[in-house]
């Protein structure tokens, strides 16, 4: 049996698309590795292990409505299904419960969401250093918190987790804010446009006030971050007027999110460099259609737009897929799409403001010390890469084969963005010119033992 559409990712984008497709009668299968639908923002929103999930904010609790609508729809959903290969021929391979399985589909919709932008500061590989998103995930899925932690970096998600910790009564050692002071000025011209999304502006300002009035130490305009410690993190050193030190065994880093593109890369889809958001993203048209017509991408995985916009993008992409499947005429598609197109247009100025205000600073994107690790898996440092570059490895793939940077289990998810930008800096050319690693399936390490359990999918018809 062949599905009309297989969707990878049950976040706001994937769920919204699935509802639209299923309501129109298409056979849809949604695969997500999480135990429950929701994605990053609504992770465990429908089954929170916290007694007081209200502390996570109204955005979070509102998620259970979308999850319920999705679960009530006719879309099939497989949870704890980890997708590790998506082929242009419509073959999707995933592992569920230790057993690799395969499904076949006409249309593929990737909604894999975002990941955090790597932040290669000295000491970022020490145990105790995690990302702010990790703090979010641990809180939502396991109600686990780290007492007296340092939060360092910039951007809404960093402030959100600090505010959530404070509301839950978890002590925070410090917020070390790296947003350059000049950004408050350079982003001013974008404020009027952003005010069209005034509820979001006020929510953000409210969160900042909450943190300021909590009395936790807040260091603004911090730079030159270095994690202290030999075998594990013991604190953070940074410049803020003078040299500062805050001690803690937990340091959470964050400076924005970037699309998670390993599947779209392995599929060989075209990608472009988004200079405003300082990241790579898959190339799509206004309907989320990629360079391969039957493969679409929606939500943060196609370019960072946020959770509300991700829902609109998911629906729009679904409408176009319905047109491609012959279930909607172009005119019907366009008519049904007008509202979501308008929503996206209205939100764009707010996103542009956030991008400007919290745009990543170069000194956090690029390692500043010769011995700072770039490739966490293969332990390659800035000096090793510079040496490779000087030996003639001028693009990411050449540098990879010469230095092994990017050859470890994470398949370049962490070092890839850094390497593109380092080479761009050294070559004095834009990232678009430099390119990115060539990737191949599978998306993660597979053991022969796992493969030996390979089965065609037994449920839902014969293969």
């Amino acid at each position, binding site marked *: 049996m062949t599905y009309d559409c297989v969707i990878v990712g049950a976040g706001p984008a994937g769920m919204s698309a699935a509802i639209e497709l299923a309501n129109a009668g298409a056979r849809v299968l949604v695969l997500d*590795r999480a*135990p429950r639908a929701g994605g*990053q923002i609504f992770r465990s929103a429908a089954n929170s*292990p*916290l*007694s*007081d999930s209200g502390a996570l904010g109204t955005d979070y609790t509102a998620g259970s409505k979308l999850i319920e609508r999705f679960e009530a729809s006719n879309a099939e959903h497989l949870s*704890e299904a*980890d997708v590790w*290969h998506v082929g242009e021929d419509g073959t999707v*391979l995933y592992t569920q419960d230790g057993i*690799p399985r395969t499904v076949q589909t006409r249309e593929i919709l990737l909604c894999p969401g975002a*990941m*955090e932008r790597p932040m290669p500061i000295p000491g970022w*590989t020490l*145990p*105790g*250093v*995690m*990302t702010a*998103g*990790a*703090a979010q*995930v*641990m*809180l939502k*899925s*396991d*109600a*686990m*918190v*780290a*007492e007296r932690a340092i939060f360092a970096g910039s951007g809404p998600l960093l402030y959100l987790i600090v505010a959530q910790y404070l509301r*839950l009564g*978890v002590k925070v050692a410090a917020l070390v804010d790296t947003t350059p002071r000049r950004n408050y000025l350079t982003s001013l011209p974008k404020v009027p446009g952003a005010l069209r999304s005034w509820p979001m502006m006020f929510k953000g300002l409210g969160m900042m006030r909450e943190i300021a009035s909590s009395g936790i130490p807040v260091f603004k305009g911090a730079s030159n971050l270095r994690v202290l410690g030999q*075998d*594990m993190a013991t604190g953070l050193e940074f410049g803020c007027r003078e040299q500062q030190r805050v001690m803690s*065994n937990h340091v959470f880093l964050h400076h924005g999110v970037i699309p*998670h593109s390993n599947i779209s890369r392995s599929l060989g889809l075209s990608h472009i460099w988004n200079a405003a958001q300082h990241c790579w993203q898959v190339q799509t048209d206004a309907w989320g259609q990629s360079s391969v017509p039957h493969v679409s991408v929606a939500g943060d995985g196609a370019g960072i737009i946020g959770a509300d916009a991700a829902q609109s993008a998911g629906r729009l992409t679904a409408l176009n897929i319905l047109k491609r499947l012959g279930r909607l005429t172009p005119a019907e598609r366009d008519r049904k799409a007008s509202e979501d197109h308008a929503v996206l247009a209205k939100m764009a100025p707010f996103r542009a403001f956030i991008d400007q205000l919290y745009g990543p600073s170069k000194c956090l994107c690029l390692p500043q010390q010769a011995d700072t690790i770039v490739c*966490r*898996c*293969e*332990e390659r440092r800035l000096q090793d890469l510079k040496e490779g570059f000087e030996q003639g490895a001028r693009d990411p793939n050449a540098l990879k084969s010469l230095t092994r940077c990017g050859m*470890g*289990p*994470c398949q370049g*998810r*962490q070092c890839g963005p850094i390497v593109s930008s380092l080479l761009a800096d050294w070559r004095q050319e834009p990232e678009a010119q430099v390119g990115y690693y060539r990737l191949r*399936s*599978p998306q*993660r*390490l*597979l*053991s*022969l*033992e*796992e*493969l030996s359990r*390979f089965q065609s999918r037994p449920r839902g018809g014969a293969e």
Partner: protein
Amino acid sequence: MFSSLRSTPAKTVTVTVNSQSVAAPEGQTVWATMALAGQLTTRKAALSGEDRSAFCAMGVCFECLVQIDGTPNQQACLRRVRDGMHIQTQDITETSKAPIQGIPE
């Protein structure tokens, strides 16, 4: 220190983390179970053998690779505990056996 704000202790299971017996709520991630037991080292770094620990908690950094019931390269942040599970810090370095990668043809 990590701590848990979990409301009602769900059904618990018993697992071992590096031979230490640990009780954990059913469905909790392997990583949270390790962290709450104070066992933060998930794997050893490939060259230096230095301790590494979970970094992203969402499946993208592969720092949390552990051995589960004898099978290496399991992402502790994505896997969930089951009764009787044996979890071990992964010690695969350059000098030991390399993991196998492959795709069915």
